[in-house]
């Protein structure tokens, strides 16, 4: 449905304003294992966290951990944008954070394993380069968790 031609002018312009050039020379890590051996973490920019966690600020490059063992149905959302639908996420956490689907893939051996911890950012109001520090921090944590690959979802 997000075909720009279908949107009102102001909404199209708002989304096109987010077009940015690449952050630098292309980065590429070639896969050296089959999918069935990859350890995967989920990372979303949907502004998710548990009720006891700090909410996200209006603009915020930090991230929140989501343990693989915790009940994802307890996640809430403190995203600052008002320009997307939240009713689908209220209905089914997997619509934004597909943790049950990945647990099913793990159970059937389609992927190697899931990370101990997944993560959420809140993608709004910042220039892409402002996530560099947090993303590098996150990379270190993912490596400690022996993660090979990340599956990213926006909102």
């Amino acid at each position, binding site marked *: 449905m997000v075909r720009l031609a279908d949107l009102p002018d102001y909404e199209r312009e708002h989304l096109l304003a987010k077009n940015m050039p*690449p952050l630098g020379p292309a980065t*590429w890590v070639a896969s050296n294992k089959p*999918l069935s051996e990859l350890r995967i973490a989920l990372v979303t920019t949907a502004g998710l966290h548990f009720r006891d966690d700090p909410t996200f600020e209006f603009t915020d490059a930090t991230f929140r951990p989501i343990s693989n063992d915790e009940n994802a*149905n307890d996640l809430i959302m403190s995203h600052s944008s008002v320009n997307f639908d939240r009713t*689908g996420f209220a209905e089914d956490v997997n619509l934004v954070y597909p943790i049950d689907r990945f647990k099913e893939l793990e159970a059937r051996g389609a992927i190697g394993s899931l990370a101990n911890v997944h993560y959420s950012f809140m993608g709004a109001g910042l220039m892409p380069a402002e996530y*560099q520090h947090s993303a590098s921090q996150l990379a270190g944590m993912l490596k400690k968790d022996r993660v090979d690959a990340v599956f990213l979802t926006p909102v």
Partner: protein
Amino acid sequence: MCAISYYLERDNIMTTGISLVRENAASMAPPRSLWVPFPLGRPLGIANDPDFQHRVIAAALALFNSAQGPVLEDFPEDAPTQHTESALACPVTFVKPVTTATSWEDRLSDELNMLKPWYNLGKRRRNGRTLAGVSNSSIDEIIQRLATYLDTATLPITDLTWFKHATEDAKTYYLEAITAQPDDQDPDNLQTIFWTQTLLADALVILSEQLSSAPGLEQVARILVPRKALDRRANFSAAE
């Protein structure tokens, strides 16, 4: 999302992911990206449809097979269009004004009381799941404080973070009440119901207008009411 993907891959972690706006992914060129033609807020396409969600995930994971990148692929399926017979069919009939009360506090309180059983029903249907509560305030407190701003012609200057979270909590509460019964309502229709038929929407629009003319608070106004909501209200008024 493109930035996180870029930086993780630079730190030697493979990434793949979903993009909701193809043009954004095409310009930033993250290593692997699957564009999906779904509404913002619904990157996996359809709620409570594991088979569909698995097809989206499989398409994004298949990008790991690409020999080189960046790679941007299009997901070939649209999410099925929600049926429209129930468009604007809401479990609660919003008839404004819902009461003879004149103060915002009384009027909003009446509207909230009408919605409470539906919110509770929806919460039970979702096995206790609710997205309301980000502000850590009860819905009664939120509605009372929002009404006080309007009744006393004051602005929420001192606690903008609470104010933003509280308004989202209130919207969430209303939308979860409106979707109390299982249905496949188009998200667009739900937004139209909320923004054209509720007193809370009137309250948020007025607060947004007041904030937009207060020096330093214009940005808060912009993250209170989406531009599209104002269009919906204008179209609804014109049709009436």
